[in-house]
């Protein structure tokens, strides 16, 4: 009998290894033959440690399981999917799972993520096969047709980026995968690297063929030791199996990938700062233009995309750009892995087509708060995203609808807060974080964020509140229009949205005019 237990860092963090060991020990004690398969996570993290067994009706899950539950699971006959208080049901029939459209995460949690043969059986490498028959120009055309936009935050059309890089003339071009997933409330990159690393490799290789690049880098943050190990093993296997190398997948294209580990700087998630870091420099933001597609890594044309962007490409090539574009709304096509995080009952990765409302995501899919208290605010799009109140929960999840409310899709994170949160303190944290992580190149961000902390401290202490709030408004304007990159440029969003939607936390009875303009 096969028993599936995730080896994802989030599952390990809540005891998956101890549960797996308990299952092995109990099976031996009972002289029952059990094969443990360590998988990625399905993304339903509130159920972790989740154990699954294959039954004729499909895989049945039990979770969250503790080692103490294991003997009773055997007694109850969990190997046959029988009832037990921890039985969650058929995994793929759970509402959280069933309501998803899993393209990027189609394989996550199903099998051993480091088995290339499993990857193939589960539909992997079909995109690559088709890319090889299409050739560079048609690959770019498919990606353009898909309407895919960069999933790192900026939402730039991927096909157009690739087209520019393909046109650039250079002796050497680079593919850089941004896996410096620093936004709080995001973990899609991490789960993919741990749960389906070959998808990342396949997406990068397709990009390399499209633009004529020979070298690839994956820049992974140091806070992700498990993802680094999984990705390194997958690259090693891909090299051994000839997917990477001088004749990538048996073709005449040469491509190889090297992993680079970050060093704890949030700013290195910004693409030009990341390139500086790869070159061995301080992660200082570059002025644009020139864009990386013209002059990127070591001054060469470079396609730098987010890991989720690359991982969306195998589906697009396998099924065609149109199949991808058929999902979504407006100019937000395809699927997005929404990451429900923080004080949320059902936290995890929920991949769906754009267009679902924020309220559906938080209340129906996320099930409200973990604490059981009322939801007060949701921070969408990471530390630089706005705090949105339940009054805006009818906002559809798409780039333009969010932008209309000064919100950010970003990398897809949603952090839920209950009614114990103080939004003035969160606004202060946003400024403090910006000050901590500023690269220091431009004055508004380097100095403005420090002044922002001070101004908010005065507001929190109730000193000259009206004047300080006016000052905060001016400071935010300077940051927004005067900063070189998104760190300083976007930090006004969490600050001013907190002020706009939650003025009472700032000691104000009415909405101040500086925030009304946001």
């Amino acid at each position, binding site marked *: 009998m096969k028993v599936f237990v995730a080896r994802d860092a989030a599952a390990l963090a*809540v005891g998956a290894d101890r549960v797996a060991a308990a299952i092995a020990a109990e099976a031996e004690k009972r002289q029952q033959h059990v094969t443990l398969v360590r998988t990625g996570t399905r993304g339903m993290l509130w159920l972790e440690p989740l154990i699954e067994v294959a039954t004729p009706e499909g895989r049945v899950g039990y979770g969250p399981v503790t080692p103490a539950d294991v003997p009773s699971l055997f007694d109850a006959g969990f190997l046959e999917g029988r009832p037990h208080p921890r039985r969650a049901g058929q995994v793929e029939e759970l509402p959280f799972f069933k309501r998803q459209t899993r393209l990027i995460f189609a394989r996550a949690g199903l099998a051993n993520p480091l088995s290339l043969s499993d990857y193939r059986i589960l539909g992997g490498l079909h995109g690559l096969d088709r890319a090889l028959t299409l050739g560079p120009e048609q690959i770019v055309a498919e990606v353009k047709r898909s309407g895919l936009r960069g999933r790192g935050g900026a939402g730039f059309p991927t096909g157009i980026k690739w087209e520019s890089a393909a046109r650039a003339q250079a002796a050497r071009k680079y593919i850089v995968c941004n896996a410096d997933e620093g936004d709080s409330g995001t*973990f899609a990159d991490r789960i993919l690297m741990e749960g389906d690393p070959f998808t990342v490799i396949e997406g990068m290789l397709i990009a390399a063929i499209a633009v004529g690049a020979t070298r690839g880098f994956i820049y992974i943050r140091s*806070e992700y*030791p*498990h993802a680094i190990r999984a990705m390194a093993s997958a690259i090693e296997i891909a090299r051994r199996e000839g997917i990477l190398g001088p004749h990538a997948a048996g073709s005449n294209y040469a491509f190889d990938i090297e992993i680079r580990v*970050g*060093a*704890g700087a949030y700013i290195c998630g910004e693409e030009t700062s990341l390139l500086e870091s*790869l070159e061995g420099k301080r992660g200082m933001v570059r002025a644009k233009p020139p864009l990386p597609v013209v002059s990127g890594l070591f001054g060469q044309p470079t396609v730098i995309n987010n890991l989720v962007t690359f991982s969306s490409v195998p589906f697009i090539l396998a099924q065609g750009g149109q199949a991808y574009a058929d999902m979504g709304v407006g100019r937000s096509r395809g699927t997005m892995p929404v990451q429900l995080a*923080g004080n949320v009952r059902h936290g995890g990765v929920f991949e769906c087509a754009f267009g679902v409302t924020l309220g559906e995501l938080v209340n129906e899919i996320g099930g409200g708060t973990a604490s059981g208290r009322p939801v007060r605010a949701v921070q969408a799009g990471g530390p630089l995203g706005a705090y949105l109140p339940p009054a805006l929960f009818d906002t559809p999840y798409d780039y333009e609808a969010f932008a209309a409310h000064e919100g950010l899709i970003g990398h897809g994170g949603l952090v839920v807060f209950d009614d114990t949160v103080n939004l003035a303190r969160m606004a202060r944290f946003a400024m403090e974080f910006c000050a901590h992580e500023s690269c220091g190149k431009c004055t508004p961000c380097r100095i403005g964020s420090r002044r922002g902390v001070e101004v908010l401290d005065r507001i929190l202490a109730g000193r000259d509140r009206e004047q300080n709030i006016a000052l905060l408004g001016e400071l935010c304007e300077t940051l927004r229009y005067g900063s070189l990159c998104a760190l300083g440029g976007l930090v006004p969003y969490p600050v001013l949205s907190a002020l706009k939607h939650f003025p009472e936390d700032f000691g104000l009875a009415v909405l101040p005019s500086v925030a009304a303009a946001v």
Partner: protein
Amino acid sequence: MSSSLRRNPSRRNFDEITARKIIEAALGHEGPLLPILHALQEAFGCVPREAEPLIASTLNLTRADVHGVVTFYHDFHRAPAGRHVLKLCRAEACQSMGSEANARRLLDALGIDWGGTTADGSLTVEPVYCLGLCATSPSALLDGEPLGRVGAEQLEALAAEAKR
């Protein structure tokens, strides 16, 4: 909880031969400085100041350039950490689950501040801004092992175990 914690890697004293070997082993990389700094920290528990001129001369950089890179990144330390390193997440998702109060309680109990090491050298507590474990908050990393849904009591138990 595991009965014996894994120790923080090595804390060897600086020696030039080892440092030079590490630097030279990384020269095959394009842009080798970050891999070199990571490898030095792995070997010595920190990036020793004495290594900076060696790196500078090998990579044909100024000492100021190298020093600038070492000090830019939060990961690189100038002195080795304690025998165990506990990284506590302070980012928004963990805050929504009460991480700040837990951390304050632990730091007060240990008598240290963020980045500090206990007087007996057993434990360093460092802030980290997101571990990507945001649906199992509050999160921590103890000697590289992830921990989720960590309450204040569990933190204190871990600290007590680290002291043994």
